[in-house]
């Protein structure tokens, strides 16, 4: 074997070895990426147990009328969103809902009682669709991820879901745990479940 041929074989082997290392690294990165994405989606599915709880969904209707109870029946009396989510002129939410729950009358309350904006209607939508919606500033009230995480972690009306009063079952977990889940979801890339999956 000539010297040139020997060098050629060695060079080819080095190239093969380098390609293998790079390939392995890329494969590993892909695996990590897939694992992170799966973890992100799993985190959002867990958070979805709150997002799709009746305590939250009842005031996130797709239409103009909220629902109530765990069966999510149409709100009685018939009330509507109004121009600002606070009800119609003459029958605003705070006509009945005051600053705190009043169990003697069975009426829940919070200082910020209102419907979520129409763009944040979740009822009947898949968790994947809600996921896309919730991180879209055009549909979440102009919130970037930091503002969104702050909202879900600290907003008093969001927090009502864990202190609903009366016989209403609260949303699962705590607001702090929910906030932590959403933060972990964001930290893993804020990936969404497929939109068609519930």
């Amino acid at each position: 074997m000539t010297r040139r041929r020997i060098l050629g074989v060695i060079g080819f082997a080095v190239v093969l070895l380098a390609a293998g290392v790079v390939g392995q690294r890329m494969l590993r990165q892909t695996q990590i990426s897939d694992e992170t994405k799966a973890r992100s989606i799993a985190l959002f599915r867990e958070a979805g147990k709150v997002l799709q709880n009746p305590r939250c969904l009842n005031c996130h209707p797709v239409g103009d009328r909220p629902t109530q109870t765990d069966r999510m029946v149409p709100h009685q009396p018939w009330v509507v969103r109004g121009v600002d989510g606070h009800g119609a002129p003459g029958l605003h939410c705070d006509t009945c809902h005051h600053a705190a729950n009043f169990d003697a009358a069975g009426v829940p309350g919070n200082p910020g009682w209102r419907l979520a904006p129409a763009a944040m209607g979740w009822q009947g939508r898949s968790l994947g669709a809600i996921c896309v919606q919730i991180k879209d500033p055009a549909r979440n009230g102009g919130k970037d991820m930091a503002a969104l995480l702050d909202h879900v972690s600290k907003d008093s009306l969001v927090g009502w879901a864990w202190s609903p009063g009366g016989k209403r079952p609260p949303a699962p977990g705590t607001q702090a745990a929910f906030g932590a889940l959403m933060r972990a979801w964001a930290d893993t890339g804020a990936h969404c479940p497929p939109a068609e999956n519930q």
Partner: protein
Amino acid sequence: MGTFIIDVNGTSRSVDVDGDTPLLWVLRDNLGLTGTKFGCGIALCGACTVFVDGRPLRACSLPISALGSGKVTTIEGVSGTEAVAVQDAWVARDVPQCGYCQSGQIMSAVALLKEIRKPTDRDIDLALNGNLCRCATYVRIRAAIHDAARALED
């Protein structure tokens, strides 16, 4: 028990009641203002509608401890151009049948006219959806509110 100083119809009143007593029962039992009615006690029928700081509110769903400095106006004290127009229209149309729900209906009608000077049928329906009438005087109520709105234009 606690002592609460509350402003009702422009008068300061003192009442000794439990803090979780609904405003409705303070008005009726402690102050004798029985024009405000008990219907359901769960904010579904609107018979107990009063104003607090000029906004309609179901008196059955607010504990007296949450009233704070809010100024209460009941059917006995409601006044102003909208109230006069509604009262005149109610009389002219002979709106009430049994009359039980009417104080709540009138308070809601006045509240609506304060917000919308010339309401449509839909505006009226949406504002008064929470005021039930077992005699079904709804058609006369709606007509009377239109009459009152016309009177306010004059």
